[in-house]
């Protein structure tokens, strides 16, 4: 039944997210392919949509999970990205706006043998479904949430979203939007999520590595995927995608590594490090960006995704631009172990069942008779 975790988290006693999901038997049934995970439905996103890249990456990645295809379930809400399940030949449900995490909670709690995935967008997850998202995260239900963030409403044709920068001129905000945006990573960390990561639609390698870590994590994994909408918000992520600017725009987070970015030193003692570094900001308690050459190497923040305290991860998440995205930390912000809701719920049921020692049908009937005929009864002949 068990599969090897794709990522060794180095944490004692941590169970894999897919531990109880039956493995695919490649020897008996042949190797799984991306094609096998591709449904016969025509993909209908706009040409150039970032969703295509994510779909391809997921279809290619699923065989690496090594799970039986029938034990994988994708659930989505409403929005462009929520068409995702139709394009995968697994079990799937395209549900209603914002509610995918609640439906997935039911599935994951009912069945330990399923690998449960939620596909959602910034409007779906953070606006209409914000409540379900934060509660799934705090409960830590074993599922992976892929949050496609294009910072715009696409399916309803271009209104600003809860992640759009303030002042955004859209169809519904001709004078500029007034709302301050959510930072999905900060929000998830605030909800005490156990796995929080951010990646980019066009970086297949990084995206795949984050998916693998998210699937291996037992609990709710939130993966924010920056995704370009070529129709209504084209270029929103150009700074972190363009070869000219991305070194200065992406703050790469690698567990155990000092956090630096910008042009890399090609020789000398700082070889391999970026020109900019994160250090603790004593004044605010947060972190700040400084020139790497201005600080002692020992003062540079070393990323610790496994820290039980989310404070540093939150501080790093604040480096994300809330306006146009010129700078953003990318990678796994947080990855810690906490009992999952669904495991604990099943444990309570199992403990009660074994205490009552009745799990076959005949027993259940006798016990049902005992239940309904219990209490103070009297008999009339």
């Amino acid at each position, binding site marked *: 039944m068990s599969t090897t975790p794709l990522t060794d988290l180095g944490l004692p006693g941590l169970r894999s997210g897919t531990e109880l999901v*039956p493995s695919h038997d490649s020897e008996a049934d042949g190797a799984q392919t991306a094609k096998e995970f591709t*449904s016969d*439905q025509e993909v209908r996103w706009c040409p150039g949509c970032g969703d295509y890249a994510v779909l391809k990456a997921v279809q290619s990645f699923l065989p690496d999970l090594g799970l*039986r*295809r*029938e*034990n*994988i*379930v994708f*659930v*989505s809400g409403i929005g462009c990205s929520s068409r995702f*399940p*139709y394009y*995968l*030949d*697994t*079990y*799937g*449900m*395209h*549900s*209603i706006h914002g*509610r995918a*995490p*609640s*439906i997935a*909670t*039911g*599935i*994951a*709690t*009912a*069945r330990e*043998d*399923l690998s449960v995935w939620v596909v959602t967008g910034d409007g779906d997850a953070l606006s209409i479904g914000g409540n*379900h998202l934060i*509660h799934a995260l705090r409960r830590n239900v074993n599922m992976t949430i892929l949050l496609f963030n294009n910072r715009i409403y696409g399916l309803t044709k271009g209104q600003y979203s809860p992640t759009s920068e303030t002042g955004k001129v859209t169809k519904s905000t001709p004078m500029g939007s007034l709302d301050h945006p959510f930072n999905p990573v900060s929000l998830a960390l605030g909800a005490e999520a156990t796995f929080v990561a951010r990646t980019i639609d066009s970086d297949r390698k990084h995206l795949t590595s984050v998916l693998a870590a998210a699937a291996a994590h037992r609990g709710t994994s939130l993966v924010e995927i920056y995704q370009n909408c070529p129709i209504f918000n084209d270029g929103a992520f150009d700074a972190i995608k363009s070869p000219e600017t991305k070194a200065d725009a992406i703050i790469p987070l690698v567990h155990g590594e000092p956090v630096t970015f910008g042009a890399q030193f090609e020789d000398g003692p700082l070889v391999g490090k970026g020109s900019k570094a994160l250090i603790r900001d004593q004044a605010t308690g947060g972190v700040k960006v400084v020139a790497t050459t201005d600080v002692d190497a020992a003062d540079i923040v070393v990323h610790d995704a496994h820290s039980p305290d989310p404070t540093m991860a939150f501080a790093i998440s604040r480096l994300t631009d809330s306006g146009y995205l010129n700078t953003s930390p990318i990678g796994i912000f947080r990855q810690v172990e906490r009992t999952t809701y669904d495991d604990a*719920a*099943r444990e*309570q*049921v199992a403990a*009660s*069942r074994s205490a*009552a020692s*009745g799990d076959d*049908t005949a027993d*259940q009937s006798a016990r*049902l*008779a005992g*239940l*309904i*005929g*219990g*209490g*103070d*009864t*009297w*008999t*009339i*002949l």
Partner: protein
Amino acid sequence: MSGPAKQVKQLDRVIIRFAGDSGDGMQLTGDRFTQETAAFGNDLVTLPNFPAEIRAPQGTLPGVSSFQVHFADHDILTAGDAPDVLVAMNPAALRANLGDLHKGATIIVDTHDFTARNLTKAGYQDNPLEGDSLDAYAVHTVDLTGMTVEAVKDYGLSRKDASRAKNMFALGLLSWMYGRPTDPTTTFLEKRFAKVPDIRDANIAAFKAGWNFGETTEAFAVQYEIKPATLPPGTYRNITGNLALAYGLVAGSVQSGLPLFLGTYPITPASDILHELSKHKSFGVTTFQAEDEIAGVGAAIGASYAGHLGVTSTSGPGVALKSEAIGLAVMTELPLVVVDVQRGGPSTGLPTKTEQADLLQAMFGRNGEAPVPVVAPQSPGDCFAAAVEAARIAVTYRTPVLLLSDGYLANGSEPWRVPTIDELPVIDPAFATEKNHGSGDDAEFWPYLRDEATLARPWAIPGTPGLEHRIGGLEKGDGHGNISYDPANHDFMVRTRQAKVDRIAETIPPVEVDDPSGEAKVLVIGWGSTYGPIGAGVRRVRKAGYKVAQAHLRHLNPFPSNLGEVLKGYDKVLVPEMNLGQLSLLLRAKYLVDAVGYNHVRGLPLKATELAHAIGELVGQAEGIDIELGVWGEPTQKEHI
């Protein structure tokens, strides 16, 4: 505990109402008296009535909590219109309930709280115990509190704690008056307060002191005897609607072999269903207290998709929030039981009061053509069978089902004949395990290829190899179930979903009509908790010598196949409802029958006597005669057949 010879009077029924401040323990007192009465073997019906506030301002009219119990030596149908006995623990309780009493009724008053301050709080200018305003009643003024404090003085309680046992003193007194067995209450108190011996002993002492006071005082000269009722043979227990409903859901799970998953959010008056089911994990029951109503139903739908029996429980406001998700269950054709314990509306309305004004919401409260079967219990015990039936329909037809209970059924209780397991239907989930379209290498699984008899679609749960498929809220193509925007397909699918629900009528029993003479011209038809008052009203009219027929609907959607025929067989059709005519509207629309409504929305059950007059009036019109109900039109008149 038998005492000196006192006069013993035989009665065939009594209605007692315990009333006090919401902190006085009146619900517990009523419940204990009910349990004693059930153990004694009387038939009984109860009506708890309490404010929505947990502790409304002490001593005020809005803070009054009451519990009415009607018990008899024969089969009875309602909690009774007018109490024979009122136990009033303070001035507000007296004032709030006096109007419901008939002249000559007995009032037992705790004089302790009749202070100037409390009288003012209750809105009394003068002490009603001192003037002649209560002359029409048999008033017993007793210092219940004072005697309680005296009786428990050996247990070292503070005066406040000691006086709290006054409800047990009152219970003891009433238990003596009506010859109730005392063991059940003593045992109950021993268990309930096992961890606080002084409170336990004080309550038992107060209870016994109350009994002894009745036996020894000259103030109470008469003890009453109400013989056990002769009910059909079987094992009985007293049960509330919410408890019976929870048991029915467990039974639906056992009978279908599907683990029960309740996704829900606390709401009055449905929360006790969650509380009860959370105790039954040993049956494989999972209870999920969600972040909101929507997540509750969402999780239930997810669990159903995964092969469990998904259930969500709520009241009217919660159904409003769940509407979109119920529509999803209609579209995805997944089993789902939605329990709506109706309360006074609209909006927050009257959370602790009863009403049946969610019928049209259950029928039509969704966008698009979204037919949902609707099932309603008619009495507290009947909530069990109705829940099993809801589960049967949901699983067999792959559909959400609305189960419409109400606050009166939920909290009210009655003796319930416990069914044997072989009386319960076996529910077959019939999971799909094989591809169902094409053959050989081309074989596919089509999630919307329907069963010809039921029109149900196959239910293939995740983990079933080869049947991977996607469902969702977008319109599905007939058979293959892929997204379809084809106009003709949509028209076909809308009609097919309706036809599937209509077809349920083939597996439900025809509506039965109670028309002993076979010559009645008036039919009284209802649904839900009005069964008791309608039945009692009908009995009164018949006792007065007139003919009237009665029918009651378990299934509101679809209606039983013979309903149209039945309605056409009568000159006049009366539809009593605790709403402004929702079933009337449906009957008029579907059968073109000139249904006459009888409608009250007072947050209380309909009154049998008032109903009798309404029925009588219609019988008079139908037969062209003058109706004289005589004593049968008086609330004090007993109504048993």
